[in-house]
């Protein structure tokens, strides 16, 4: 294995003193550059897995009436292909790129929380292993990547595949939230002072905006997964008739699922916004509009989910709302496409491999966007939904835009990461193979969809045109496989024998090109002055520097404390989770079912315990005041009071549960008890986590850690504790008080 160490050292990603223990150096790393590379390598491994699954799908469909795969095997393969490509390839690779590049672009030494960063990363391989463990447990999930209920429920999927699927997505979801809280804190709190928000490079800006989308959307999925698992493992029926609702799962899944599309698309937009200007030798056209449209897209994407549900029968009124919102999102997206195009006009375009991939991504995304609008037009969706036309559309987004943008970005930034240039000759080979293969595979599928081919069928009758179109599509897939192999070969060869890249092989303008390739530990020896969005342009062209991008006062100099920022982001994220559970409670308790209901709860008793919890918000505030006034003993006293009040609350909840349990109430008794225990139980879990944090704080305070003022840990835990109390205000109102008045 020392050859690997030698290669790593040669490529500069391992220092000589680490050669002896290179495995530990990587396993235990908290360096954002290494974690970025680990993310991308993990993504690459799963890309091979998901790619083989794709080839199996295409082999099976190459000819009519194929018997290559058993139907169940085929169904597992396409489920795993979709899940793998989205959660284990697109997200890790994009987060990996961001991990590597964002701190460099803003002149930071590392991410704001290096250990959280490592933790978030390691959840990806473990989540992936958990997902694939299902193969050993009697079969992978065979329900499609959105696992529509009731097919994903125990009566129709009795093996544990779906359980592994849900658990692994929970693990991956937590990792994604962790990573993106970190991006928010890094961009806000770790920028070099001259890097004001208005000077941020567009990739960093889009990762920053995207991070909010991630922390809002993923918890929605987590809430849905938890509900699905409660159905499957505790025999409840959130999504099963009678009583439960299959459509509820779709609402929850797509309230996550559509933002998810943008979660992987916005970073790709960022990549195009970085690379196209550099190779056109012009600044991005309309920086403010490209940056602003990202915010618009992120906002709108939270309100378009039911365009995935035009055929489930929500009624024309609901359909029309989502027609409008979905079409509106085309406008900021169109603005982006036009700005990228305008950047090229009047430029001096260099056709290096990164640019080639970006040009193809731009043109392919143009088509994908237009077919996307055709899906927003509900009546057209009533025909093309769930057909290969849809399959073609979203592959044009996921592959045509995102994979192409990633490949462009890798050709662009790998020289920075390894210090060695990739071969242009091999790069162009992989580019052309990819473009030809991709368009063969997926342009054809638009026509297959219009010819009536439904998605997810394991085989098909020999209908007119279907045979040859599918064959073309399959052949194209193998071109893409060849392109991927050439790319990996290019990577390996360049790591070993590539030409030295130097600091700035593309004459680019952002800060990552101001340091060595690869950058040293903690990134920069010295930072250049930053007065505009292109600091390196200004240095190279002192005769015509960019106009100074001024600061608009305080908002732009905004540099919050990182612990507060991260806990605030975490609270935003948790609000999404509890929001879903509270809405679900309201929905499910409105369904009349026999058995216990909300009116049977003891309001008075819970009210008493609630007062203790609310009082604990006051005591922790007193503890903070004590710290502020340097009264350590008083602070410890108030901390202890908080902990005691928290324990009284948890004791009260335990008593209530025990009482209900004794009178025969179970989680699966009816929809009320299921949603009651789910909502109050998850709140109780959060109180317990808060108590553990408080106990740790108390230990630290007694040991003397609180002597350094301000003590950010207390502030952070205090914020979290207030949040848990606020959630309880909602829960108390919705669960205990509101039903009294209905």
């Amino acid at each position, binding site marked *: 294995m020392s050859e690997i160490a030698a290669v790593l050292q040669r490529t500069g990603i391992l220092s000589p003193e680490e050669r002896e223990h290179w495995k530990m150096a990587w396993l235990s790393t908290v360096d954002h550059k290494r974690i970025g590379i680990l993310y991308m390598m993990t993504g690459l491994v799963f890309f091979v897995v998901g790619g083989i699954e794709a080839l199996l799908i295409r082999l099976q469909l190459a000819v009519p009436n194929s018997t290559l795969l058993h139907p169940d095997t085929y169904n597992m393969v396409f489920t795993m292909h979709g899940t793998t490509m989205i959660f284990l390839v697109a997200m890790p690779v994009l987060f990996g790129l961001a991990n590597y590049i964002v701190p460099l672009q803003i002149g930071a030494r590392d991410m704001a929380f290096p250990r959280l960063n490592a933790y978030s990363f390691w959840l990806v391989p473990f989540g992936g292993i958990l997902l694939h463990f299902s193969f050993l447990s009697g079969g992978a999930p065979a329900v499609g990547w959105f696992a529509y209920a009731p097919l994903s429920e125990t009566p129709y999927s009795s093996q544990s595949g779906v359980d592994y699927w849900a658990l692994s997505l929970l693990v991956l979801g937590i990792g994604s939230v962790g990573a993106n809280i970190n991006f928010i804190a890094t961009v806000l709190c770790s920028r070099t002072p001259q890097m004001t928000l208005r000077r941020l490079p567009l990739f960093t800006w889009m990762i920053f905006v995207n991070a909010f989308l991630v922390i809002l959307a993923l918890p929605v999925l987590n809430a849905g997964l938890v509900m699905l698992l409660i159905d499957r493992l505790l025999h409840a029926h959130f999504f099963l008739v009678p009583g439960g609702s299959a459509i509820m799962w779709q609402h929850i899944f797509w309230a996550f699922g559509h933002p998810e599309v943008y979660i992987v698309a916005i970073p790709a937009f960022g990549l195009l916004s970085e690379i196209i200007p550099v190779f056109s030798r012009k600044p991005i056209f*309309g920086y403010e509009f490209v940056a602003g449209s990202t915010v618009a897209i992120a906002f709108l994407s939270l309100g378009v989910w039911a365009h995935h549900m035009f055929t489930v029968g929500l009624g024309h009124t609901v359909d029309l709302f989502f027609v409008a919102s979905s079409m509106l999102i085309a406008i900021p997206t169109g603005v982006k496409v036009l700005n990228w195009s305008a950047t090229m006009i009047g430029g001096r375009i260099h056709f290096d491999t990164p640019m080639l991939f970006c040009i193809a991504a731009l043109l392919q995304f143009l088509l994908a966007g237009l077919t996307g609008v055709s899906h927003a037009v509900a009546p057209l969706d*009533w025909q093309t939904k769930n057909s290969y036309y849809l399959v073609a559309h979203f592959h044009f987004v996921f592959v045509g835009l995102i994979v192409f943008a990633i490949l462009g970005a890798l050709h662009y930034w790998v020289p920075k990461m390894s210090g060695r240039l990739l071969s242009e000759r091999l790069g162009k080979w992989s580019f052309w193979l990819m473009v030809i293969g991709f368009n063969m595979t997926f342009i054809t599928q638009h026509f297959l969809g219009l010819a009536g081919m439904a998605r997810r069928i394991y085989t098909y009758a020999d209908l007119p045109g279907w045979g040859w179109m599918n064959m073309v599509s399959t052949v194209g897939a193998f071109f893409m496989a060849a392109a991927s192999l050439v790319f990996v070969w290019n990577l390996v060869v360049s790591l070993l024998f590539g030409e030295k890249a130097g600091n700035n092989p593309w004459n680019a303008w952002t800060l990552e090109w101001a340091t060595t390739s690869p950058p040293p530990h903690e990134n920069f020896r010295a930072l250049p002055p930053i007065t505009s969005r292109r600091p390196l342009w200004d240095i190279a062209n002192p005769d015509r520097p960019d106009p100074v991008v001024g600061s608009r006062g305080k908002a732009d100099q905004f540099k919050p404390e990182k612990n507060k920022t991260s806990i605030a982001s975490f609270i935003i994220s948790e609000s999404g989770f509890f929001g879903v559970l509270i809405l679900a409670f309201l929905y499910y308790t409105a369904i009349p079912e026999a058995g216990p209901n909300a009116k049977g709860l003891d309001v008075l008793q819970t009210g008493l315990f609630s007062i203790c919890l609310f009082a604990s918000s006051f005591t922790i505030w007193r503890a903070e005041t004590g710290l502020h006034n340097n009264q350590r003993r008083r602070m410890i006293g108030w901390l202890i009071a908080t902990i005691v009040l928290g324990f009284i609350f948890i004791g009260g909840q335990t008593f209530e549960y025990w009482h209900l349990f004794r009178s025969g109430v179970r989680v699966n008794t009816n929809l009320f008890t299921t949603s009651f225990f789910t909502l109050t139980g998850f709140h109780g879990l959060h109180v317990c986590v808060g108590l553990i944090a408080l106990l740790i704080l108390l230990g630290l305070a007694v040991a003397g850690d609180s002597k350094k003022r301000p003590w950010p840990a207390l502030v952070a835990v205090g914020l979290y504790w207030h949040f848990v109390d606020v959630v309880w205000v909602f829960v108390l109102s919705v669960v205990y008080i509101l039903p009294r008045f209905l």
Partner: protein
Amino acid sequence: MNALTVLDPQSPQARAIFHLAIVAGIIFAVIFAVVAGMIVYALMRCRWREGEGDPKQVAGNKTVELVWTTIPFLIVVALFVLSWRTMNASDPPPTPEPDIVITGHQWWWEARYPKSGVVTANEIHIPAGTPLSIRLESADVLHEFWVPEIGRKMTTVPGHPNNIWIESDHPQTYLGVCSEFCGTEHAWMHFLVVAETPAEFQAWEQAQLAPAQTPIGASALQGRALFQQTSCMNCHAIKGSLASAGVGPDLTHFASRKILGAGVAANTPENLRRWLTNPQLIKPGVKMPDYKFTESQVTQLTDYIETLK
């Protein structure tokens, strides 16, 4: 038989969607041509040539931004209005009493005609030229009813009945499919919609209402006895016999249908033999197990079932 394409509408409802598709298609084509034209122009005319320095640094233009935000907005408004109109034209509100209730099962379709009492499977007869109100239900998981030539698709959701209209301008047979993934045999959940002249339709309805005749011939009679003694009747119904279960397709007039196993094969005596010998070989995963009938039992059952015209 028509071949499952969205580009050949045969009903007013499907035509409304198709016309919108043409209008939208033209709009999209123009947008694509303009924007792709811009990009291709840049690629052709703005190439860097050896020795050239960096061009003039243009960072944007607010007027241009305003123009290309406004124009798409107007297009979106137009498309929204068109969508609204087409939704009403292609998907009018349902009648309280549907003409046909269609239920998706794993992996076949049941069709009940509440007004006449006809129950059949995988082959839906309709009179040409009349719009019919269809109620869609599900017996288990989500399915999706899709006959592209004659109307929109719609999911069948357990506990949430949906309604659509279908119509055919003239007598013709259409292929329909399930387009929402529904488990192992989602691929073979086809059905036929047979549009006939009103007279033919009435004749068909009368024929469907008749109970099965007592078969003639020893082998067929033995087949009927076998059907009523074994597990067949736990799932299937044959009116006029003891079998009345509703788990699998109603077989009273099975032999009059064109497809077998929801489209996995043509309904011929040879295919029926293969099916009865082991359905799992023809449609792996189908809910009907392999009963391991002997050769002669298969012959008897085939002879009996072939009498169910």
